[in-house]
């Protein structure tokens, strides 16, 4: 809080001056009377004018006191003559009000309240939440007053003779404040520093430190995201993924930067409409897109457009107005002054939001990093010219359909060539006249190029020659078509050993998974490999063959342990001398055993149409159809599936270009060469593009959707009148003149001084964050059916302070944190518990279980596992197998994240609306389908199961165990002390130490005897351990850590 600003507030207060003390009345209209009338009477005698019974409205004084035949529902000052009193006290079942079938019985004290109220004159007051905000007088009171908050709380307490609780101990205070402001526990160092800081503003310094922490924004965001129903999936039906994490990060940043709440409001509702919106403002406008949406086939757009409109009204009115405007979708509101027209007029503010009612998401923008932008540009520069080459070449081709004669000739030619080229039925040729296609073909040390010899040949046109000084070889490495070797096959090669220069030895080597398949002729020691002359992995094929003639060398595969394997490489080696090689291949006999390896696929005979396709587009068109368009990219397929004469010129050209570029034989090499360069670049570009962060934003339609009042909420009924954007009439009117009001006008109105609700609603929620309950306990309903605030003047004072400070959230939180009220102990003595069981008077602090995300964060933080990066994509912690089995369209498999992503704060967990993470859901995390202002806080066996068995907590426990052993001293007592201080910020008491020591001793013994069990326990989770401690010790301490992580105290903020 800025000191100056605080003073200004005080000054305003003193100007307002009069300290109004609330008289103890039995029948205060707003506090006591209206709730009764609203709950028991308004459903039939309230604001829903169309359905009002007996022409009597009890929400309006003039209607209630109107005389009719000498009777009136209410005769001020005269309860006994008032028809209302008669009817609520009669025993006549036909007469009594409320009617029995409504099941709304009045309790005796409620009757008394109404009687007293009429007796006092039946004065009506404006509903407290709709009253214009003004500074209330500051009650004077003596006591532990740290700031005006305490004045309000303690003056109220005094009235009932109660006292505020004492300030709690420093450890509890720090722990409370750390959870409330950052969602994380304090570290032992922070505890120590605070305990040792004797300066007068020690506590204020802590408040400031925590408000400055980047984790403050995360903590506040976790609450805000429930309000705006932020999620990573769409919600309806297939519940597909949606990209919107940058919105979440915007919220975190906004809280951390202490963006004023009015600005925060404008940016989310209308960031896109701000003048020259920044990227952050556009991202913030994603708020309007966070609702549940559908892509279900068969869903009707009109129905969903209506659903979305209603959803936005429910959400915005609950988030900002704390009002149930959503209840006026089908009829006027039964309790609050909202008409059905108000509902649709409010919906009209959002009628300009671009959306696809059923189907893909719209307005998803990319947010590339600088690196991504640069790399994309670089790729573009390489891709562009290559694509241009293709375009130019395509433009240059003057394609003409070949005549039938040409096609026939082509087929005949190819068939003939195939026949001729066919190897002898049982021979697979690897080298003969041509080198095989292989990844590399090399001679050793690249000093001896491959050398054809057309003079000397055994078969075909040529052989090749290898001259060696020392060892030399020809390697055909990684054949493009590896050979499945069958039992009974025989490799062969024809060799001519030079008479003048015979080698010492020759060797054929084969590679499957390794090179250890060798056939050697001649001196077995001459050819070494791998730096040795180890012979055991060579098979001796005896003497060198005769020189000076062609000799066929044969290697039965069974002799070199190759049967059933896949041959990928082959090498011909010699030691010294000269050899001419020719026709290298594999002989397959009829007795080769096909079962030794799955049979090589028989080559199908080529369809003539396929052969024609090489030179004819028309034939290819038919061929592709015959192949059912298999493997054809979608946009080309969409053209080809139309009959040729039904295609428009542009499409026809596109299809032909595709053919020429990818199929047409005369240009295959040309385009193939470009593709070889282009394809990897495109692949990289596409992968990069896919990886770019995206987010949904709001884009405005020039022509907003027509919005009508839907009679009874029926989307098929167009008879209702058209409405333009407007705020609920009872709350005010926008001054936009003839101009259509926009979301920006709405946002500005919400945080204008005329609006009585928004500040009250929001500070009440800040109070809830700091105490576990609001000053008004119905955080989402400030209407007639909501509860009256326990301290209406304090609520108004805080609201005024909030506005006067410039909608400063940190300022308001700090005010609350500095009050004595906040610092009170949460331990209630029996009297105070009996007098005020629900803590309506705030004579003590609240005690409550941590929110789901904090339960997780706490364990990770204490163990040291927590990765405290702020923001980023959503992450996937461990999740039980099969939990997503009910998802479909598409089916999804949950793969948990590795590394740092496994240990992020709960708020970053991938939020799947239809199946929210079960570990968080067990602790009441919301599904983010609708606005949740207050989570229920249940206490269930599922929570116990999660803390006991979820690998997240077991892994955290074993990690904590290592820490205890490494840092916690030597004795068990010291270590237990360390464990307690680190986890719940205090020292264990003696009885606690005893219990834990017993468990430790017992488990240490057990894990010492059962080492396997210790191993298994310590293997839980991904994290590798480098601990030097013994397994048994670690496992036993893991047991202790598991106990600690399950303690009620560990998951409680008090």
């Amino acid at each position, binding site marked *: 809080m800025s000191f100056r600003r605080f003073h200004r507030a005080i000054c305003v207060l003193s100007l307002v001056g009069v300290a109004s003390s609330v008289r103890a009345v039995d029948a205060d209209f707003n506090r006591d009377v209206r709730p009764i009338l609203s709950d028991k009477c308004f459903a039939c005698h309230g604001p829903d004018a169309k359905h009002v019974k007996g022409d009597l409205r009890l929400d309006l004084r003039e209607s209630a006191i109107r005389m009719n035949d000498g009777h009136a529902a209410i005769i001020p000052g005269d309860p006994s003559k008032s028809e209302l009193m008669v009817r609520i006290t009669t025993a006549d079942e036909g007469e009594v009000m409320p009617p029995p079938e409504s099941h709304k019985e009045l309790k005796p004290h409620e009757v008394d309240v109404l009687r007293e109220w009429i007796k006092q004159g039946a004065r009506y007051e404006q509903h407290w939440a709709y009253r214009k905000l003004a500074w209330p007088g500051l009650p004077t009171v003596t006591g532990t007053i740290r700031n005006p908050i305490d004045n309000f709380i303690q003056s109220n307490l005094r009235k009932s003779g109660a006292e505020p609780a004492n300030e709690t101990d420093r450890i509890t205070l720090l722990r409370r404040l750390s959870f409330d402001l950052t969602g994380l526990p304090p570290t032992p160092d922070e505890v120590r520093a605070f305990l040792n800081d004797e300066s007068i503003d020690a506590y204020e310094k802590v408040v400031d430190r925590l408000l400055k922490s980047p984790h403050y924004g995360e903590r506040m965001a976790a609450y805000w995201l429930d309000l705006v129903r932020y999620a990573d999936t769409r919600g309806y039906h297939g519940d597909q993924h949606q990209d919107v994490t940058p919105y979440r990060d915007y919220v975190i940043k906004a809280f951390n930067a202490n963006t004023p709440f009015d600005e925060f409001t404008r940016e989310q509702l209308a960031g896109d409409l701000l003048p020259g919106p920044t990227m952050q403002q556009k991202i913030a406008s994603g708020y309007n897109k966070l609702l549940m949406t559908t892509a279900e086939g068969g869903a*009707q757009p009109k129905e969903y457009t209506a659903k979305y409109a209603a959803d936005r009204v429910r959400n915005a009115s609950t988030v900002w107005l704390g009002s149930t405007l959503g209840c006026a979708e089908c009829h006027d509101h039964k309790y609050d002054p909202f008409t059905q027209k108000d509902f649709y007029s409010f919906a009209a503010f959002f009628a300009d939001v671009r959306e696809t009612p059923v189907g893909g998401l719209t307005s998803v923008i990319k947010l590339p990093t600088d690196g991504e932008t640069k790399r994309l540009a670089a790729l573009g520069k390489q891709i562009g010219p290559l694509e241009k080459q293709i375009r130019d070449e395509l433009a240059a081709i003057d394609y003409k359909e070949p005549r039938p004669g040409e096609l026939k000739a082509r087929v005949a030619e190819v068939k003939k060539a195939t026949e001729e080229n066919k190897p002898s039925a049982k021979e697979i040729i690897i080298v003969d006249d041509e080198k095989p296609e292989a990844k590399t073909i090399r001679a050793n040390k690249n000093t001896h190029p491959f050398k054809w010899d057309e003079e000397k040949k055994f078969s075909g046109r040529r052989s090749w020659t290898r001259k060696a000084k020392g060892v030399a070889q020809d390697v055909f490495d990684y054949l493009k078509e590896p050979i499945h070797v069958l039992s009974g096959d025989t490799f062969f090669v024809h060799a001519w050993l030079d008479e003048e220069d015979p080698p010492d030895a020759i060797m054929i080597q084969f590679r499957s998974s390794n090179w250890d398949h060798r056939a050697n002729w001649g001196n077995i020691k001459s050819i070494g490999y791998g730096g040795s002359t180890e012979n055991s992995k060579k098979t001796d094929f005896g003497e060198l063959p005769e020189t000076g003639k062609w000799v066929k060398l044969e290697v039965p595969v069974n002799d070199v342990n190759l049967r059933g394997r896949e041959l990928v490489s082959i090498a011909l080696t010699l030691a010294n001398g000269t050899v001419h090689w020719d026709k290298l291949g594999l002989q397959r006999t009829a007795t080769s055993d096909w079962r030794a390896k799955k049979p090589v696929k028989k080559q199908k005979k080529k369809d003539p149409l396929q052969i024609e396709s090489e030179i004819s587009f028309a034939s290819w068109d038919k061929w592709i159809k015959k192949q059912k368009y298999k493997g054809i990219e979608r946009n080309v397929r969409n053209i080809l599936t139309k009959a040729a004469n039904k295609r428009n010129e542009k499409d026809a050209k596109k299809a032909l270009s595709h053919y020429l570029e990818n199929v047409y034989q005369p240009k295959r090499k040309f385009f193939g060469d470009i593709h070889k360069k282009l394809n990897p670049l495109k692949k990289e570009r596409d992968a990069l593009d896919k990886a770019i962060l995206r987010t949904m934003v709001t884009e405005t339609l020039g022509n907003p959707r027509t919005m009508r009042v839907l009679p009874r909420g029926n989307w098929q009924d167009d008879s209702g009148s058209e409405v333009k954007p407007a705020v609920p009439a009872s709350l005010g009117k926008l001054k936009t003149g003839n101009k259509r009001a926009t979301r920006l006008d709405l946002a500005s109105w919400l945080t204008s001084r005329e609006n009585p609700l928004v500040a009250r609603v929001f500070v009440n929620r800040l109070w809830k964050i700091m105490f576990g309950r609001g000053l008004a306990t119905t955080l989402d309903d400030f209407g007639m059916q909501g509860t009256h605030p326990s301290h209406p003047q304090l609520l108004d004072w805080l609201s005024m302070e909030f506005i006067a400070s410039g909608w400063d959230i940190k300022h308001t939180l700090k005010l609350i944190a500095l009050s004595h009220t906040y610092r009170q102990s949460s331990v209630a003595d029996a009297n105070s518990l009996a007098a005020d069981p629900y803590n309506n008077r705030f004579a003590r602090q609240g005690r409550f279980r941590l929110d789901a995300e904090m339960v997780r964060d706490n364990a990770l933080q204490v163990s040291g596992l927590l990765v405290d990066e702020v923001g980023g994509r959503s992450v996937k912690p461990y999740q039980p*197998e099969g939990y997503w089995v*009910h998802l*479909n369209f598409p089916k999804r498999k949950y793969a948990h994240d590795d590394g740092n992503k496994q240990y992020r704060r709960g708020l970053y967990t991938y939020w799947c609306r239809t199946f929210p993470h079960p570990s968080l859901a067990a602790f009441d995390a919301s599904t983010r389908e*609708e606005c949740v202002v207050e989570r229920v806080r*249940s206490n269930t066996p599922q929570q*116990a199961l999660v803390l006991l068995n979820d690998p997240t907590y077991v892994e955290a426990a074993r990690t904590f165990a290592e820490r205890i052993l490494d840092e916690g001293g030597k004795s068990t007592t010291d270590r237990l002390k360390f464990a307690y201080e680190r986890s719940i910020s205090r020292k264990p008491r003696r009885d606690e130490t005893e219990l834990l020591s017993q468990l430790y001793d017992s488990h240490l013994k057990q894990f010492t005897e059962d080492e396997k069990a210790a191993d298994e326990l310590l293997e839980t989770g991904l994290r590798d351990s480098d601990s030097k401690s013994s397994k048994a010790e670690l496992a036993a301490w893991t047991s202790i850590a598991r106990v600690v992580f399950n303690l009620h105290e560990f998951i409680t903020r008090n």
Partner: protein
Amino acid sequence: MTMNIQTLNDLSNRRTFLGRAGLGSIALASLLKPGALQAAPGVDRWTGTLGRLHHTPKIKRIIHLYMAGGPTHLETFDFKPELRKMDGKGMPESFTKGQPIAQLQNKELKCMGPQHDFQHFGQSKQYISEIFPHIGTVADDIAIVRSMRTDAINHDPAHTLMNTGTLISGRPSIGSWMLYGLGAETDELPGFVVLSSIGKHGQSQPISARQWHSGFLPSRFQGVELRSVGDPVLYVGRPGGVTMGRQRDIVETINKLNLLHERATRDPEIRTRIAQYEMAFRMQTSVPDLVDLAGEPESIREMYGTKGADGSFAANCLLARRLAERGVRFIQMYHRGWDHHGSVKSKVAGTAGEVDQACAALIKDLKQRGMFEDTLIMWGGEFGRTPMAQGNGRDHHIKGFSMWFAGGGIKGGTSYGSTDELGYNAVDDIVHVNDLQATILHLLGIDHKRLTFKFQGLDMRLTGIAGNVVDGILA
């Protein structure tokens, strides 16, 4: 009293919420005696908000055989000879004009006759499709409603309406309402259990956990999935290397320390926490025992048509009986396989074959155990299918479809309500989904208008502002 989130949280803080006072001593006893954790049931049983029921109940529990995807009524329980005569002809526009339609939007609408024949079954001569020979054998036990109506034409919202009574998300499902109102009859298992199986004939449409969510009610009332993959109940499996004995050591130490802390702080929530750990520990033994079907006699397994807990609908029916025996209040079994947009003839027969025998077996088995009289068995999906053809299948349809009911308080061997001659509109004795919900609560002894929870200023209830008890199917 009217409950809302704050009062419920408050009450839970005060222990009055738990209704019983005996926890302390029992918990202490269990703490002093090692291994006594299993012996302390009943201490934290939520006995329901209602206290006294509104009238005498007919049933204690419900088994909902949820045929997800929208089973065609025209090939199952609602035979339409007129429709057969109209086969291939245009659907009269008087039926379809201005009506909501799903995938047949902007398509030509032609009638498609029933693809299967029907037979009279039982003494009551109930008219049921031949694809249900086994259900036919229990025809005298079931009441068929042929005049169901719903409001939502797509799966997800239609399921939401069927389960929560409204199209808006975030509201409690029927099982949660039951637990909130009545509590459960078991301390070893959750009171509301969900099982599911996937059919092989037709698309398996997704199902959201919203369908068994507790909405604005506390999550203790949420349905718990009993799964056939991984741990049968989420997180019920112990960590590696942790024997039952070691787990017990841990839980006992936790509870002892919590009890010490309770003495120091007088925080009433701690007692509840202790009780929850005891229940969690009991679940870790009771769940494996529950899903172990090996102990069931061969004859029983054959009767249902299952070999073991394999995730099939038949296995789930047998598990449902075991859950019912153990005091589970609401058992909901989704069979995801009824969305037959194409080839309805063969596919509906296929899906029927997956459920027929087990449905009948469940009824017979409950009868032979004397549990039929206090159990409601309900069979049906989220909507029906169009009399109009979608190719050789049928599209979603909400204006008329069929369900059946059996068990306590139900008039067996009856048919109730009807659709028009083409099976399009429910015309006689129309039963809206909210009426169905009112009837279910009625059977449980609850007036649906008086089981409420204050939320956003309204006394929320399962049936919204609608719902009439369907007397015609009640005995």
